[in-house]
């Protein structure tokens, strides 16, 4: 039906985006009928999404002609934006932004650097930026999940944590069961993605590689490689985030700062 627009790729893209947005709004309207109001949030998210992705597409167009280091610059900017986004999930957590940014930078950044150095990720901007951004985006989600879960766990178990402190435990020991639970919960999406790979879904990267003419077996293997890198980057980010945030939720005198009603 939309084949009539196939002559101009830009117009085709805009028409496809409008159709997809319309579908999204139909779902929002259905939700509204059931008393669930998502209109404002969905509209803002869609508007932001389209502006951001078109902006990135334009920047990529510019960067593809630039020197290779500009890819690193773009990834660094993505890390800061990811830190700010996932810090919002950790309401009232002291120092959530610096903790998130450092955790993503060291967690996802080290995996990107190592894999690029080993040659697993191509240094060409067309490969480095999309693959790197996948690792950063997943690390961001994991970081948001771990901080959000840890915050809830600490608030729900402030009594147990202070009891442990009162019995002579240090701050790390007193919060250890809740850090562990949060860490495990934050990695469920990454592990489930890996577990259901090829059975429940064929990820975008593999689909893209197939569309651009790569051999199916190589596309499949590389998709597995990317998902393992996502698991590593997410796991490392989550681990670093919990280590860094631990020192922020206690005072130097090992007093719990994050308390219900404070």
């Amino acid at each position, binding site marked *: 039906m939309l084949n009539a627009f196939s002559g101009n790729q830009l117009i085709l893209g805009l028409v496809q985006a409008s159709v997809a947005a319309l579908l999204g709004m139909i779902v929002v309207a259905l939700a509204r009928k059931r008393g669930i109001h998502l209109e404002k949030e969905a509209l803002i998210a869609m508007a932001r999404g389209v502006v951001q992705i078109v902006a990135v597409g334009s920047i990529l167009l510019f960067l593809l002609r630039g020197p290779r280091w500009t890819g690193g610059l773009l990834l660094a900017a993505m890390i800061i934006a990811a830190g700010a986004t996932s810090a919002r999930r950790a309401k009232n957590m002291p120092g959530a932004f610096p903790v998130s940014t450092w955790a993503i930078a060291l967690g996802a950044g080290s995996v990107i650097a190592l894999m690029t150095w080993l040659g697993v990720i191509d240094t060409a901007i067309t490969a480095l930026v999309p693959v790197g951004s996948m690792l950063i985006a997943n690390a961001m989600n994991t970081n948001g999940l771990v901080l959000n879960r840890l915050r809830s766990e600490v608030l729900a178990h402030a*009594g*147990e944590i*202070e*009891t*442990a*402190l*009162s*019995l*002579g*435990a*240090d701050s790390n*020991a007193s919060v250890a069961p809740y850090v562990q639970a949060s860490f495990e919960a934050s990695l469920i999406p990454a592990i489930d993605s890996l577990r259901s790979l090829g059975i429940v879904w064929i990820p975008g990267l593999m689909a893209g590689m197939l569309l651009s003419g790569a051999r199916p077996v190589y596309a499949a293997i590389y998709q597995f490689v990317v998902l393992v890198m996502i698991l590593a980057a997410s796991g490392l980010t989550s681990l670093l985030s919990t280590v860094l945030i631990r020192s922020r939720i206690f*005072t130097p*005198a*090992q*007093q*719990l700062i994050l308390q219900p009603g404070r």
Partner: protein
Amino acid sequence: MLVEHFEVSVSIQCSANASCNRMSDRLTSDSVKLHSEQLGRVVSGKVLVEDVTFDVRSGEVLAIVGPSGSGKTSLLRLINRLDEPTSGTVFLNGTDYRHITPRDLRRKLGMVTQRPFLFPGTVGQNLCFGPRQRGEHIAQERIDALLANVGLAGYSHRDIANLSGGEAQRVSLARTLANSPQVLLLDEPTSALDDASKSEVETLIQQIVRQRGLTTILVTHDRAQAARMAGRALVLESGRVVRIGQISEVLNA
């Protein structure tokens, strides 16, 4: 002893440096186990505790009483340094508690709270928690003895999920005693229990405190309980001490 105590108290005002030394002299005397010196905490402009000064002598039971919201629990949390004072300090055996590591301080000041907050696992594992934090192994015989002491002989391997409210509070008391505290801090230890358990746990605490000669600070809103358990009482209102003295004088005033 009381005269000496008074003289040293007066001389505290002489000079800042001298006062520290004299305070130390005074507090290292056998009689005073814990001394709260002008203790206070203000959070976001709200006064929780203000200028609270008192002594607790070795083996004494001091009750802190007052209406709901008067700052009793806030004061106990300052004494255990779960919260940081914004003014004043506490001396334990004559040492400013800011010079004691928080872990060591809290082990010495054993706390039992209104709710027991037992950790998942068995009763025995809960009793091992405190000693394990400083790398100590607690023998099964000692666990059994502590449990027998709180009337729960044979409960060591029982899962905490299967305990009644009164039993859980007894385990909480035994867990605190497993750390061999020098001072016992009791924060409304029976207020979350039903009447039958309340009476049992109160009697048990009284027995243990007497047997061990434990210096104890009891926070309670129940004046009758304070009268049954304590020798002296401190009355708090809006975070300030309004009366302190022998229990009968204070509660009848």
